[in-house]
């Protein structure tokens, strides 16, 4: 999906809980989300922290599409609250 859109010259940030999957098939810009059931946030947190997690992820996506890459690249959301680190796929 992302690759075909990038083929049209439009950079795409793929937000996913399992970065290995899009990276393995050659998506250029991949952003690590939280979990499959809640990629862009974390319902286990308070509303405020949950929203902060989402901001981090979306900000990372904006960074991704503004970054030159030459191969599939993983962008890790910076400063994620410690309690959201449960979702590492690697």
């Amino acid at each position, binding site marked *: *999906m992302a690759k075909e859109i990038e083929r049209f010259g439009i950079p*795409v*940030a793929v937000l996913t809980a399992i970065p290995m*999957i899009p990276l393995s098939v050659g998506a250029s810009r991949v952003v690590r989300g939280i*979990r*499959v059931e809640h990629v862009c946030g974390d319902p286990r947190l308070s509303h405020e922290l949950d929203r902060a997690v*989402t901001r981090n992820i979306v900000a990372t996506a904006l960074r991704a599409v*503004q970054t030159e890459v030459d191969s599939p690249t993983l962008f890790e959301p910076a400063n994620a609250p410690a309690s959201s680190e449960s979702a590492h796929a690697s």
Partner: protein
Amino acid sequence: MSSPLRVVHYLNQFFAGLGGEDQANAPAQVKEGPVGPGRVLDSALGKGSVLATVVCGDNYVVEEKDHAVEAMRRALDRYAPDVLIAGPAFDAGRYGLGCAYMCMAAQERGIPAVSAMHPENTGVLTFRRNLLVLPTGTAVSEMPSAMSRLAAFARKLSSGDKLGSAMEEGYLPRGFREPVMHSRTGAERAFDMMMARVLDREFISEVQIPQYDMVPPAPPIRDSGRTKFALVTTGGLVPRGNPDRQVGGRATSFFKYSIGGLTELTTDDWESVHAGFSTAHLNSKDPSYVLPLPVIREFEDRGLIGVVHPHFYSTTGNGTPVTVAKRMAKEIAGELREAEVGAALLVAT
């Protein structure tokens, strides 16, 4: 070497009968003897048998990989099998990764391992060099034939005989080349191949080039604050009631829905029909976990995003064949270009 084969088998929660996506977070457990399709494997093994079955939820195995693998190591130590057999995982990506992790854990212990899955499964794409994988299609109805091939392959692995090439033995190529003695020189063989090509006859190249469809990355945008962004999701997000009857898996269509003027997505108005993961959080709490509209609007207000395309694109990314996904993405990309969209955020579930 003809003593009965002792096998440990790996299954995900679905094939082990624990449940569907609601059980995808199920932690590792070990069951005595064969479970579910393991019984088919057990009978395909003839005198051999499945001593134990290790089961993990599909989310658990990728999210808690270390714990999952540790459980497998303990089971391997306890049952000391001749071979580990994982799957088949068909085209299920998380399951395929789980099978790959388990096979690698066994191999580290000196125990041969084999899995079976679709050649495009992430497990193969990611770890092909480390794995012996028999190819399958996508249909679970292939289970009996896959199991008998796995059983035969496992016997071969445990026999200690040298494993032949991928082509001879029927596993997916790992990407290694091995020097062999050939009775005919390279020039002679190349000449034969050239003749076959010219005469339109079949031939098998000695240099197999992997058919990765690599797309050069699009150039970055300069300034997100001056860019029109589009939102795309494969999370099966649709207006509540699913007016277009989007499906929960193997989708062949995408739909676009207006978000003009919307600042958030409520469970009253939106739902996910995705059948490949548990949608409880999306459908009872907040659909924006697959389309982070509130934060997008906030960033738009703060000038971090220029403007948001007034429609978002939605499909269900669950068992969609690559060719279908490509076709949909091409159509979406065409529309985005027409709308002068500069960048896209794609939430993939």
